[in-house]
C-alpha cells in the first residue's frame, strides 16, 4: 500500500496526500541546455522537438517572472528543481507498475481495462510520464487519437509539429517558456472532422516524487464539426516543500468544432500555517480558429498553495463562442489569482464569463479578467458575472475586470457582487434542522450552481463533495 503521512488531520483534510513508494528515475536538479538535451534524449525525441525546447529555453532566460499577480511567495530557485522524474518500471517499458495502478485506483481512477470508468477514457500521468491510457480501442474505431504526448510525437508527428506552440508560443510568458523547454509528458488528443467523441476524455495528473516540478503539456485539436468533452483532475502528496507545477494547455477548434474542457484542480494546498503546497502556474489557451467554433472552459479550483491561471479564448473565427465558468475556493493561506481572457477578433463572436470566488481563512482570492474587442469584431458580445463570497473576516477578495473595446458595435455587460453568507439564510436552514456547517456548504454550493451545472454529471457530484470537504472547518 502507498505510505501514509502520520498526521491524521491532514489526511482527513486532504485524502489524496499519500506518497507511492516507487523507484523513480530522476535527472539531477538544475536547468541548462544539457538537462534539456538529456530529457529530450530520454524521450527519444526528433530534432525539431529538441529545437523547440531549446528555443523556448533561450526565450525563458530572457524573461522575468511575472510580478503583477496578487500573490506573494519567496523566490523560486529554478536550479534546485528536478525537471524530470519517472517511475523506473515504466522506463523499462513494462506494463503499469502495480503500485502505480493501486495509486490511481485509490484516487478513483482504475486503469485496468476490465474495471475502467464507464464512459470516460483516462490518460494517467504520474510525475513526468503518462502511465496508461484506457479505452484505446473504441477511440481508434472513431479515428480519435488520444494518448500521451510522447506517444503522439511518435504516432502522429506531423499533427504535433503543426499545432504545438501554435496557440501558446514557446516564448509566450515566463512559465509557458519554462514549460516549453522542459515539458515532460501530458496528453494529446485529435478528433477527426465530423466526429462526436463517444467518451469523455480525461487526464489525471499525479505528482508523486519530491523535489521535482511537473511540467505537462496538453494539446487538443478538434477538427471541423467535431465535438469533444475533456476532463482534467490533479492531486499531489502532502509535503512540506512547495512544488512547482507549470503546465501548458493548448486547444484548437476548427470550423464548427466544440471543445468543452473541465478541470477539477485539487493539488495539495499546504497546511494551516501555509507550509508546503503546489505552486500552480498554468497557461491555458484555446483558439477558436474556425467559424462557429466553440471553446468552453470550466474550472473548479480548490487546491494549490498558489494558483496563477487564466484559461483564455482567442475568438478568431466569425460567430465563434468562448466560455469561462469558474469556481475558485481558497482557504487558510492559499492565494489564487485566476480569471480569463476573451479576445474577440472575428465578427459576431460571443463570450460568457461566470466566476465564483469563495475565500475563507486568511486566503487571498483574485479574479482577473480581460475582454478585448478588436476593430474587426463587429457586433461582438460579452457577458461577465463575477461574484465573490467571503467566509470569515480575515480573507480577501479582489476583482479586476478589464475591458478594452475597439469596436463601438460591441455589446458588453458586466456584473459583480461581493457578499457573505447571510445570517438569515443560515437561520432559515437551521430552523429546518440543518446544522450550520451543512447549511453553509449548501449555500456555497448554491452559489456555485451555475458553474457546477456545466460539469459532466459525475464530475459535478465530485466537485460538490470536494467543496464540502474543503469547507469543513473553514469557518473561523
Amino acid at each position, binding site marked *: 500500500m502507498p505510505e501514509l503521512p502520520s498526521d491524521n488531520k491532514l489526511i482527513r483534510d486532504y485524502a489524496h496526500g499519500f506518497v507511492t513508494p516507487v523507484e523513480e528515475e530522476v535527472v539531477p536538479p538544475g536547468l541548462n541546455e544539457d538537462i534539456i538535451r538529456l530529457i529530450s534524449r530520454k524521450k527519444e525525441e526528433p530534432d525539431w522537438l529538441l529545437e523547440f525546447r531549446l528555443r523556448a529555453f533561450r526565450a525563458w532566460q530572457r524573461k522575468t517572472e511575472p510580478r503583477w499577480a496578487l500573490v506573494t511567495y519567496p523566490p523560486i530557485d529554478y536550479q534546485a528543481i528536478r525537471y524530470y522524474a519517472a517511475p523506473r518500471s515504466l522506463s523499462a517499458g513494462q506494463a503499469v507498475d502495480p503500485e502505480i495502478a493501486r495509486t490511481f485506483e485509490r484516487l478513483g481512477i482504475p486503469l485496468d481495462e476490465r474495471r475502467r470508468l464507464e464512459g470516460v477514457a483516462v490518460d494517467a500521468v504520474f510525475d513526468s510520464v503518462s502511465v496508461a491510457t484506457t479505452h484505446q480501442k473504441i477511440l481508434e474505431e472513431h479515428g480519435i487519437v488520444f494518448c500521451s504526448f510522447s506517444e503522439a510525437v511518435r504516432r502522429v508527428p506531423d499533427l504535433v509539429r503543426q499545432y504545438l506552440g501554435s496557440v501558446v508560443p514557446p516564448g509566450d510568458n515566463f512559465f509557458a517558456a519554462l514549460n516549453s523547454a522542459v515539458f515532460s509528458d501530458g496528453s494529446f488528443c485529435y478528433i477527426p472532422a465530423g466526429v462526436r467523441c463517444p467518451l469523455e476524455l480525461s487526464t489525471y495528473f499525479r505528482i508523486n516524487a519530491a523535489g521535482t516540478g511537473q511540467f505537462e503539456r496538453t494539446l487538443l485539436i478538434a477538427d471541423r464539426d467535431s465535438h469533444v468533452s475533456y476532463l482534467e483532475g490533479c492531486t499531489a502528496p502532502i509535503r512540506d516543500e512547495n512544488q512547482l507545477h507549470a503546465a501548458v494547455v493548448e486547444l484548437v477548434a476548427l470550423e464548427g468544432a466544440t471543445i468543452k474542457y473541465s478541470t477539477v484542480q485539487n493539488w495539495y494546498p499546504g497546511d494551516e500555517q501555509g507550509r508546503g503546497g503546489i505552486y500552480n502556474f498554468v497557461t491555458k489557451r484555446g483558439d477558436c480558429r474556425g467559424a462557429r467554433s466553440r471553446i468552453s472552459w470550466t474550472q473548479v479550483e480548490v487546491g494549490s498553495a498558489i494558483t496563477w491561471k487564466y484559461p483564455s479564448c482567442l475568438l478568431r473565427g466569425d460567430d465563434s463562442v468562448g466560455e469561462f465558468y469558474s469556481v475558485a475556493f481558497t482557504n487558510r493561506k492559499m492565494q489564487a489569482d485566476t480569471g480569463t481572457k476573451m479576445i474577440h477578433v472575428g465578427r459576431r463572436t460571443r463570450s460568457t464569463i461566470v466566476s465564483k470566488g469563495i475565500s475563507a481563512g486568511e486566503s487571498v482570492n483574485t479574479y482577473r479578467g480581460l475582454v478585448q474587442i478588436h476593430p474587426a469584431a463587429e457586433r461582438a458580445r460579452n457577458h461577465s458575472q463575477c461574484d465573490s463570497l467571503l467566509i470569515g473576516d480575515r480573507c480577501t477578495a479582489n476583482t479586476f475586470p478589464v475591458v478594452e473595446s475597439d469596436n463601438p458595435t460591441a455589446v458588453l455587460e458586466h456584473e459583480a457582487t461581493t457578499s457573505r453568507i447571510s*445570517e438569515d439564510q443560515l437561520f432559515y*436552514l*437551521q*430552523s429546518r*434542522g440543518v446544522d*450550520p456547517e451543512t447549511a453553509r456548504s*449548501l449555500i456555497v454550493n*448554491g452559489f456555485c*450552481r451555475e458553474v457546477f451545472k456545466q460539469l459532466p454529471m459525475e464530475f459535478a457530484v465530485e466537485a460538490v463533495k470536494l467543496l464540502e470537504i474543503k469547507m469543513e472547518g473553514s469557518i473561523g
Partner: protein
Amino acid sequence: MTNAPQPLLQIEGLRAGVGGREILRGLDLEIAAGEIHALMGPNGSGKSTLSNVLMGHPDYEVGAGRVRLAGEDLLELSPEERARRGLFLAFQYPVAIPGVSVVQFLKAAVEAVRGRESVRAAAFLRELRETAAFLEIGEIFLNRPINEGFSGGEKKRMEILQMLMLRPRMVVLDETDSGLDIDALKVVARGVQRIAGPSAGVLVITHYERILNHIPPHRVHILLEGRIARSGGPELVAELERRGYDWLREPSAAPSG
C-alpha cells in the same frame, strides 16, 4: 418525572427583545397536544418576535422566562436542535437561497430531522411529489432555487410543504394566511389540518378571521405590548373584528410594564 399531563408548549414569563429593545414583556402561553391556538395582535405587538425567539434566531435576546417543548428547555437548544425536537416555524417572510433547489433544501432538512433513511432517493422523491401535489404545487417548483423569485403565495405554500415533509409536533404559523388568495388559503388550511391531530400543537398567528374559519382554534390569545392581554374561545375573534384592539388596552398601564 411528573404524572401530571404536560403542555406541549409552555411559555412562562418570557421577556425578550432585539437590538437592545425589549419587545416581549412577560409572556405566558400554554398549548397542549391536540390543540390549535390562534394568536392575534396589532402590527408591531411582537408576534414575529415571539416566533423568532421560539425558533432561536440569534439576533433576539432572551432576558427572562422559560420555554419548554414537551418538558424540555427549548432556550438551551440551537435552532437546528429545536427543529429536530419537532418545532416548526412557517416564516412570515421566508428567505431565498440562490442556487439551492427545493429538492436539495428539503433533502438536507428531512435528513437532519427525520434521519438519513428518510431520504433514500426513490421514496423521498415520491413523498415529496405527492406532498407537493396535495398542496397543488407544480413539479417544476421542486427544481427551482428555493423561494427565489417565488410570489408571496408560492412562498407560503412552500413553507407548508416543508412543514408536511418534516412532520413536526409543534407548529407556529406566522401570518401564513397573509397575502393568500382564497384557493391558496384552502390549500394551506388543508396542509395544516393534515398535521394537526391528537399529538400535535398548532399556533396560528394571524390578523384575519378567515383562516380561522378553515382551521378552527380551541383558544384565541391577544398579544398587546408584549403580553397576552386576553385569552378566550373562538368567539373572541368575532369580537375583535367588531371592536378592534383599543378596548383591550389598559389606559392606566405604564408603557414600560
